[in-house]
C-alpha cells in the first residue's frame, strides 16, 4: 500500500493550518524533520555555549546574592539545553551525534556567545538584552507546530522570566550607582546592543529558510517582526535606567508607535558566524575540553551500570 506522498503532505499541511500540533511519531515531510533538527539543535547548542560567557563571572560575582543568582541562572541554561536536546531526540537524532556536530563545526550556535564578558555589567547586559531578545523569540516559537519543541519552549519561557529581570536589576543598579559603575553599564550596553539586535536573525528579505518554516509554522512570525517587538520593549527600559542606546539614528515614530533603529551592520554578524568573532575559538575549545575530559567519566558510569546489571542477574 503506497499512499501518495502528495496526499500525505496535503493532510499534514491541513493539520498545521487547523492549528494542531505535530507529535514525534506522526508522519512529517522529510524537510520538516530536517529543518526542526537544525533549528532545535542549534538552539540547544546556543544554550550550552551560552553558559560559558556568563560562567566566567560565577567565581567573580561581587556579592553572595549575585553569585547565587548567577549560578541558578547558568544552571537553568544547562537545563534548557537539556530540554532542547531531548526535543530534538524525538526526531530521531541522538544527543551525542548533535554534540559531535557542534564540535566538528557542522552545527551552528547563536553567534552572540562569541562576544566576551569583559566586566560585571556584561552579566547584566546578557540577562537584560540577550535573554530579553531570546524571550521574545521563544514566546513566538512556543506557538510553533511541533509539539515537543513547543512544550520545551513553554517551559523555558516560564523559567527565563527571572533571567531577564535579574539582568535589568544589575544594569539599573549600576546605572544608578557611582560614576564608574554607570560607565560600566553604558559600556556594556554599547557592546551588547547591536549583537542582540542581530541575534534575532537576518532580515526577512535575506533569510533563506523563512518561507517554508513559516508555512509549516515552525516559526509563526518573521525575524523582523520579532526584532521590532524586542526594540519597542527595550528602548524605554534603557531610558528608564538613564542609559542611551548606541544608535544616532534611533527615533520614535509617532504614527506607527514604534521605535525605528538605524541601519544594521550585517558584515560583522556574518564575520562572527563564519568563525571570526572574538571568542569563537575559545568557546569551542572549552566545549571540546569538557567533551574529551568527560569521556572517561561517561565510560566509567556505563561500565559500572553494566557490572551491576550482570551482578543482579547472577544474584537472581
Amino acid at each position, binding site marked *: 500500500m503506497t499512499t501518495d506522498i502528495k496526499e500525505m503532505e496535503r493532510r499534514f499541511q491541513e493539520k498545521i493550518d487547523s492549528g494542531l500540533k505535530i507529535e514525534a511519531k506522526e508522519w512529517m515531510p522529510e524537510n520538516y524533520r530536517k529543518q526542526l533538527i537544525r533549528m532545535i539543535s542549534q538552539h540547544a547548542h546556543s544554550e550550552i555555549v551560552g553558559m*560559558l560567557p556568563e560562567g566566567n563571572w560565577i567565581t567573580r*560575582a561581587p556579592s553572595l546574592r549575585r553569585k*547565587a543568582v548567577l*549560578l541558578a541562572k547558568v544552571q537553568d541554561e544547562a537545563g534548557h539545553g537539556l530540554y532542547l536536546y531531548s526535543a530534538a531526540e524525538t526526531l530521531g537524532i541522538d544527543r551525542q551525534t548533535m554534540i559531535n556536530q557542534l564540535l566538528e563545526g557542522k552545527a551552528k550556535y547563536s553567534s552572540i556567545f562569541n562576544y566576551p564578558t569583559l566586566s560585571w555589567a556584561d552579566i547584566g547586559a546578557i540577562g537584560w538584552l540577550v535573554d530579553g531578545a531570546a524571550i521574545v523569540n521563544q514566546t513566538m516559537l512556543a506557538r510553533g507546530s511541533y509539539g515537543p519543541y513547543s512544550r520545551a519552549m513553554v517551559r523555558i519561557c516560564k523559567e527565563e522570566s527571572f533571567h531577564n529581570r535579574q539582568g535589568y536589576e544589575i544594569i539599573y543598579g549600576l546605572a544608578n550607582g557611582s560614576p564608574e559603575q554607570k560607565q560600566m553599564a553604558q559600556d556594556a550596553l554599547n557592546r551588547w546592543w547591536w549583537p542582540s539586535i542581530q541575534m534575532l536573525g537576518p532580515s526577512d528579505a535575506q533569510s533563506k529558510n523563512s518561507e517554508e518554516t513559516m508555512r509549516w509554522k515552525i516559526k509563526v512570525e518573521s525575524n523582523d517582526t520579532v526584532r521590532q517587538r524586542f526594540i519597542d520593549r527595550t528602548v524605554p527600559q534603557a531610558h528608564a535606567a538613564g542609559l542611551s542606546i548606541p544608535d544616532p539614528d534611533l527615533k520614535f515614530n509617532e504614527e506607527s508607535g514604534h521605535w525605528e533603529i538605524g541601519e544594521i551592520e550585517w558584515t560583522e554578524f556574518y564575520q562572527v558566524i563564519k568563525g571570526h568573532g572574538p571568542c569563537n575559538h575559545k568557546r569551542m575549545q572549552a566545549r571540546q575540553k569538557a567533551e574529551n575530559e568527560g569521556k572517561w567519566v561517561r565510560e566509567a558510569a556505563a*561500565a559500572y551500570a553494566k557490572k551491576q546489571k550482570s551482578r543482579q542477574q547472577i544474584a537472581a
Partner: protein
Amino acid sequence: MSTEEALFQYLIRLGDNALILGQRLGEWCGHAHQLESDIALTNVALDQIGQARNLLTEAGRIEGKGRTEDDLAFFRSEMEFRNNLLVEQDNGDFAQTIARQYLFDVFQFHLLTELSRSSNEFLEAFAKKSLKEVSYHRKLSSDWMLRLGDGTEESHNRLQQAIDILWPYTAELFEMTEADKVLMELDMVPDLKLIEQKWQAEVPSHLEESRIRIPDTKGYMARGSRDGHHTEYLGYILAEMQALPRSMPEAKW
C-alpha cells in the same frame, strides 16, 4: 573566651567551609562531562552558597560590628579564613571533585545531624534545614564513588589518586579549638571526636566497597586552617572572588 566570641568563630568556620566549597563547585559550571552533571554540581554549589550566606549573616549579627555576609566574604584576608584545607583543594578532574565532596559530605552530614540538637536556636534551625540538602549531597557523591571506583580501570586509578591526594587533609576536620570547648559546655555544638568516630565508621567501608584503598600517610596529616594557615590554593581563590568588590569598596551591587 566569651560565648559570643566562640560562636562567632564557630559560625565563621562553618560559613567559610560552605563558601569555599561552593566557590570551587561553581568553577565546574559549564564544564562537566554531561549536562545532567553540570546541573547536579551546580545544585550542590547553590546549597553551599545558601548555607554560607545564612552562616555569615548570623556571624556578623553575633559579632555586633555591623558586618554583613558580603563584608565577611569579600573583605577578610586569607589568614582570617577558617575553612578546612580539604574544601579549598583544587577541582582536579571529576574524580578529585567527587572524592573531595564525598569526604566532606560525610563529615558535614554527621556534624549537622548533631547540630540539629543544638541548644543554640540558630544552629538548631540551620542544621535541620541544611541536613536535608547535605543528605542528598552525600547520596550523590557516595553513588559516584562507587561508579568511579568500580567503573573502568582508568576511573578507578583516577579516584585512587584523588583519595591519595586528599586523604591527608581529612584529619583536621575534627580538630577542636577553644571555641569548641566553650560551646560544648553549653550543649551548642558536638564533640568532634564523636563526629570523627561516625565518619570513621562510614568512610573506610564505603571506600572498600568502591575498591579504593586508604593511603598510608606514615602518620603525616596536614593541619593549619584553625590558625588561618592554609594551602596555597586559598590565596588564588580569594584573589579571584574578592577582586571586584575590593576594587570599589564603597559600591553597591
